């Protein structure tokens, strides 16, 4: 397979539907050969962004570049971009092989060659021998792989995935996302992937663009987003987080001395200055133990046993905290008074607002 991965660049792109902006002045660059995920809640503009790359929507303003060529007003037909649809969009009246060969045929590839390439494509997704079937005769996972093969055989410079796993059951999802990731990195394809599932995003991406309310909230590697969320939205969206009020008392080099409901911790200051702030506490960073010290502490309001871990809701002066405890042997009963501590590794300072 020829390698011709291309970059994708948005410059101040806006897309309006009437008075509503689906995407507002966003700019980003996707490096060749990487898999970038557009992540966000529904209605945040991630799917619109994907469709703008595909050419299924035209920007209201701004420019889109693929492989450094401007394609802003080029329709989908003329862009070297293919897409795996959420519904797979397999043509129900064509066999699997006809589906996979479709793009080749309409692009003028000789029939024999198109079939050969299509068969190679089916082999890549592990569906050799399924060519003569109709899509309706395949399972959901197989249909999904046909959709991937159909998009792959055109050797696009950019491959798009629109929530490709949302129609699969949970077990299958984990395997297929790994398959997609393996295929993408072995072919070094530039890929853009849309999902609302943060775990999926963390698992497959080189980089993640978190979107919120038609705008980009933060961009970075999965690790950066999890460990250094830019704001409360990102902290809350990527993984779970307890957002609590805190006070920065003084700065000490890279660190800040922070008062979190009476607990004094040293956290990276991330450019904040003394005064009010917020801290995002990961659920596993909140440590509770039965028995009460004087002052502070809290009470277990709810305990949920989930096999390999226990989830607690703890009432405290900081508010209700969501706590995950991987130590399942000493279950703390509801109503027990507990001592609360915070591990510095799972706490991140955020601007007060």
């Amino acid at each position, binding site marked *: 397979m020829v390698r011709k991965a291309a970059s994708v660049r948005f410059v101040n792109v806006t897309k309006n539907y009437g008075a509503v902006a689906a995407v507002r002045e966003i700019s980003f660059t996707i490096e060749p050969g990487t898999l970038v995920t557009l992540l966000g809640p529904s209605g945040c503009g991630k799917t619109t962004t994907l469709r703008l790359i*595909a*050419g*299924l929507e*035209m920007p209201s303003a701004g420019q889109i570049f693929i492989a450094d060529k401007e394609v802003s*007003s080029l*329709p*989908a*037909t*003329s*862009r*070297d*971009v*293919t*897409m795996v*649809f*959420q*519904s*797979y*969009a*397999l*043509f*129900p*009246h064509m066999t699997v092989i006809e589906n996979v060969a*479709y*793009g080749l045929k*309409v*692009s003028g590839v000789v029939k024999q060659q198109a079939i050969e390439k299509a068969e190679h494509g089916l082999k890549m997704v592990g569906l050799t021998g399924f060519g003569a079937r*109709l*899509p*309706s005769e395949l399972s*959901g996972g197989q*249909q999904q792989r046909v*959709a991937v093969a*159909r*998009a792959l055989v*055109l050797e696009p410079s950019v491959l*798009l995935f629109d929530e490709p796993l949302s*129609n*699969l059951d949970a077990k299958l999802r984990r395997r297929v996302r790994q398959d997609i990731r393996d295929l993408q990195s072995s072919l070094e394809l530039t890929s853009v992937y849309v999902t609302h599932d943060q775990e999926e995003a963390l698992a497959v991406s080189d980089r993640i663009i978190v979107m919120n309310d038609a705008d980009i909230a933060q961009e970075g590697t999965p690790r950066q987003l999890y460990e250094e969320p830019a704001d409360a939205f990102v902290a809350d969206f990527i993984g779970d987080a307890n957002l609590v009020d805190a006070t920065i008392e003084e700065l000490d080099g890279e660190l800040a001395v922070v008062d979190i409901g009476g607990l004094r911790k040293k956290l990276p200051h991330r450019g904040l200055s003394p005064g009010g702030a917020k801290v995002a506490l990961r659920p596993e960073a909140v440590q509770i133990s039965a028995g009460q010290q004087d002052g502070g502490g809290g009470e277990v309001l709810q305990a949920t046993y989930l096999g390999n871990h226990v989830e607690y809701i703890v009432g405290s002066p900081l508010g209700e905290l969501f706590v995950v405890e991987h130590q399942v042997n000493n279950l703390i009963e509801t109503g027990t008074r507990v001592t609360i501590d915070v591990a510095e590794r799972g706490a991140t300072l955020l601007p007060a607002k």
Partner: protein
Amino acid sequence: MIPRQSGLDRSIVMWLAMGWLGFAGLPWYAIEDGFWSFVWLADLFSDRDYAPGLIQALVHERPWLLPPALALLAPLAVWRRNRTDPLYARVLIASGVFGLAYSLAQGFAIGISGWEYAVFESAFGPFGQRQFGMGYGALLVCGASLFLLAQGLAARGAVNGDGFVVGAVSLIVALVAIFIFYPILQVLASAFQDNDYQFAPALFLVKLFSRDIWGLGCLGGRVACGIAWNSLLLGVLTGASTTALGLAFALLATRTGFKAKKLLRVMTVLPLITPPFVIGLAIILLFGVSGTLTQLMEWGLGITPSRYIYGLPGIWLAQTLAYTPIAFLVLIGVVEGVSPSLEEAAQTLRADGWRTFTTVSLPLMRPGIANAFLLGFIEALADFGNPLVLGAEYDVLSTGIFFAIVGAQHDQGRAAVLAIVLLCFTLTAFAMQRLWLGRKSYATVTGKGDTGIPVFLPPRLTWMVYGTALPWAGFTAVIYSMIMFGGFFEVWGLDHSLTLRHYADAFSVTVGPDGIYWKGAAWNSFGTTFMIAAIAAPLTASVGLLTAYVLVRQRFTGRDVFEFGTMLSFAIPGTVIGVSYILAFNVPPLELTGTGVILVICFIFRNMPVGVRAGVAAMSQLDKSLDEASLTLGANTVTTVRRVILPLLRPAIVAALVFSFVRAMTAISAVIFLVSAEYHMATAYIIGRVENGDYGLAISYASVLILVMIAAVLLVQLVVGERQLGRRRPPAGGQVAGASV
């Protein structure tokens, strides 16, 4: 895969070539000998009547035909320009607008006797030249201009810059404008003219408010009421009766343990294959002066036979018989649309069967019931055949229009005024149906499989439904057996000896020395009807489905207006279309009356909404991501339509073909104005026989017509419909998306 972005598009080059072919290579004017005659080939350049526009202008002293050349030359100036260049779009739009506007303007300005309008005569002096209706050449030049305009608009970014879609929209808009709006405007215009074509607004008011339209004499005295009131009364009565009966049948089919539900489905096909007035004919055979029931009553009860059935009772009865199946069809969807889970919810909340029906089911159906009523109302007002056959002194608007044109009075102005009144009634009903009911639908089709089993009706209601629907079904069966077997009797009511005479009169064939001789009186009109319907059907289906595609799949400014315009022809009664076509297409530039072409065109635009609806329904079931998948895989819109959408629409295509064919065969209202000696249609012929009292021939012809249409429906379904789809199961739930998990 990356297409050329600069230079003229292939499709533009093709349309330019077509334009030049039309301008320099084909006769500009219509050929007297008909659309398919090719006598002009020999004298193309020498004959004044046959020459193309260019030759007309240069050789035959018609210099005003030269300017269209500009529209066909100008686009060459942007030959090497980029499509995104503003000049490119501007030149194409300007060429298109100029070519179209100029060609039409000169056609309207200069007619058979020189200047058409006195204004020009006084401004430019008298004019010696004359010209006739437009022909192939003019048609191609206008067509090419239209598509240049469309390509220009697409280049400016209309509808995502898709030339095919802009072209399709432009084409449909142009066709609807020429063949629906222009004729209707002609009706309006001629309502304001006296019989010498002078502008006479006062006369219009006199005609509009005349006593014979709006008079209320029947309330007090013995004078007949105005025909507008007659029509309204008939519409309301028929609307109410068809809705009530339709609801009874719909409930019978879905909410009772009735066994023969399949049989009810058969009933829904009947109005489709029956020319409406045939019902009226059967009613005469039953209730007429020498009708079976009338004679029975004379024999049994001593009631003197009279013409009691003629007038309102007869028309109402015939229309109720004819249109109840339509109401049934609408209401069965409505009844099925009421989610069973809502009724189950009501029952768990302690409502009994009767209360559930009256407080939940019925209110939910209310918009649908109103819809069925309005449909029945429109159909009743538009119906022409039954009032003609059964009306006697009970005049209604649709027949009034006809008699104003063909009768002794020959008053075009009056016909136009009546047409306007009728149009106002039907359009009001149509607008109410679309705008008011459009938003009020409670139909609960969510796509999610709604669980629950339809609740059976409470016993009281079940008996009411049985008591209404079954006798009516029996009566319908009697009527249809009259139609199918009435033709085998010598003279109905007088001489009941069996005979094949009527069938022989209509359809006999003898083998003479010169081969087969089609001796029967019906062959001529039968052949014409079959041919015209066969030509019109694929065209109707194409226009309808193209419109449906644009409506369902594309978003563009003015889409709502576009939709309203295309569905409007449904609300225009056939008689109004008939009159308007006579008024609009009797003179150049579009001289079509007396040809077969006008019949074909009339059918296309009368039946277009049927194709549109079939297409919209089917296309809404196709997930849009199928189109998008095809586009991202490098196929353009045309390829996508051809290889993805059309194959998946096969059932809708079949439906549209059958519907438009059959409707063309059974139509009467518009057709009766447009038939000519050469192109006589079956329905018009049968009506003629009925008016002459020749019931035997009429009824035997009608029965053959019905059989032919049943055969056509079955055949097309067999040949086109099942072949492709038989290979696989129909997708569950009707949703043809890529995914099924």
